[in-house]
């Protein structure tokens, strides 16, 4: 079932196009990562589908139109910074969220336990550390048990312990079977937490699919020799090699299956090329990300 469908979303700020014809599909149960460098339009795109930014063009639809204009009550979202009334405490702030969502039994105590804030529930929000604020925002997103959760840079600005806590909380939430949409510029975060990913840059969608499909299963072997042309020639007829590409004086071999380094070494030697360099690299999302985002658009 479709949770969120975006078609051709565009938002301009003066001469800058923050989001440029973005189209995405998020299905129920996905952990959908939106990955892109800072300023790539992630937050603007999420702001548009959450009704706080007016898009210049394009459409979006939540839940296949099931809730009409009232869809936001079924979405829990943490966009950029946690925003609460500083003079109210955690419980009072969550009560406001529950009231807006018309949540019948908001279970505020349980949520505060979950994000480890129960002991500070009576302190005003302004006395909280950044990590505590972020955790309260996660609790707020969960009030009323929304079907979809949106987290925008959930670990931004946190110290390592805070990051670990927030990631654990996100993992727990994903374990509950909710649909999660997470925007981040941190690859590791998306790679670990998400099943699907969309990579955007300058507001444009560069790639989308399952994390497995975006991170190709190719094994990459980095080789080097004095004569790279001869080396390339040596592997041209070697079936596991799908693609060979020269980079920084090295030859990268993309193999469809794992081949022992000794086999590669022997093969090169038999063809009269002596390897000066041989390294097996597992291609990560990071290099894919850098490769995709560094392409000219």
């Amino acid at each position, binding site marked *: 079932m479709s949770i969120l469908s975006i078609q051709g979303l565009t938002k301009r700020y003066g001469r800058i196009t923050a989001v440029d014809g973005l189209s995405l599909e998020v299905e129920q149960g996905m952990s959908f990562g939106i990955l892109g460098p800072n300023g790539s339009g992630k937050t603007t795109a999420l702001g548009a589908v959450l009704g706080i930014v*007016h898009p210049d063009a394009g459409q979006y639809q939540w839940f296949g139109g099931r809730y009409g*204009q009232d869809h*936001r009550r079924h979405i829990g979202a943490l966009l950029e910074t946690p*925003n609460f009334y500083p*003079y109210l405490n955690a419980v009072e702030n969550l*009560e406001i969220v529950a*009231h*807006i969502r018309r949540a019948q039994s908001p279970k505020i105590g349980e949520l505060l336990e979950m994000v480890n804030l129960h002991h500070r529930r009576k302190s005003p929000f302004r006395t909280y550390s950044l990590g505590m604020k972020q955790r309260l925002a996660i609790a*707020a997103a969960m009030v009323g048990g929304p079907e979809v959760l949106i987290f925008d840079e959930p670990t931004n600005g946190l110290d390592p312990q805070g990051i670990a806590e927030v990631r654990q909380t996100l993992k727990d939430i994903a374990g509950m079977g909710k649909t999660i949409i997470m925007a981040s510029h941190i690859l590791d975060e998306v790679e670990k937490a998400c099943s699907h990913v969309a990579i955007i840059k300058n507001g444009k969608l560069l790639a989308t699919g399952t994390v497995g499909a975006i991170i190709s299963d190719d094994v990459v072997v980095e080789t080097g020799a004095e004569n790279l042309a001869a080396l390339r020639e040596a592997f041209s007829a070697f079936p596991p090699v799908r693609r060979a590409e020269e980079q920084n004086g090295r030859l990268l071999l993309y193999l469809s299956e794992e081949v022992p380094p000794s086999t590669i070494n022997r093969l090169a030697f038999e063809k009269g090329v002596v390897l000066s360099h041989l390294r097996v690299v597992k291609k990560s999302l990071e290099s894919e990300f850098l490769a995709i985002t560094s392409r000219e658009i």
Partner: protein
Amino acid sequence: MLYLLKLEWKKLNKLAAFRIFIAFYLALLPTILLLGKRIPELPPPLMTNEVLFIFPTVWEWLAYVGSWLCFFFFGFLSIISITTEYSYRTMRQNIITGLSRKQYFLGKLYVILGVSVLATAYYALCALLIGYFNTPAIYWHKVVQNASCIPRYLLMCFGYMSFGALLGFWVKRTGIALFLYLSYVMFLEAILRWGVHLQLWKHHSMHFYPMNAIEDLTPLPFTQMADEFISNYGFSLFLSPAEAVIATLVYSVLFLLLAFRLVKRADL
């Protein structure tokens, strides 16, 4: 409506400015008028301070005192309750959480209406009590003679708060909005008037500026002096009550429609 009012109450009742402004209003409205007891003699044409406390003039005098308090406290409250939601970014969060922009705006409108109604009820109560304890002989027709002050008081409070709301939604920053509000009411309108007409007092039409219209809903009750002004200059110092009511209603609706347009169109 109740849903939105309850929501606004949850936000406001712990806001320090809200509590302070309400407390000041409740305390100052009767106190300032009763301070008049300290003045044994007044300059002509009033002569005695008695008119401040007896029916029917107590309505006008207390309304005049109240107009200053509403201008300060409730105008400020209207601005602060809106601008703080920009600075805390809670307006944006409210909408993300599920309110529509229209609901958000209506919540603020209901607060303005609610505060105006309660402030007016308190004004009526104070006027009745002060009048009751100070009028030697109470005749019902004297008590209600100037009771038309009550709806005008309501409109006065609503007018100031609507203007505050427009400035709040437009300027978004508490300090600047408060400064603009104060300076517009105190002197910018007079400058504007002078800029248009090149004179402060010239013609009756000059009274139809928004803040002047609101002020004339509950003017300083110097009726005799005003009459003198008419005979000397050929036009009144104040708008007639009916003119002031219509002008204020038109301006308030205009302010609120403009504010709603801002809420509808803004990227948050």
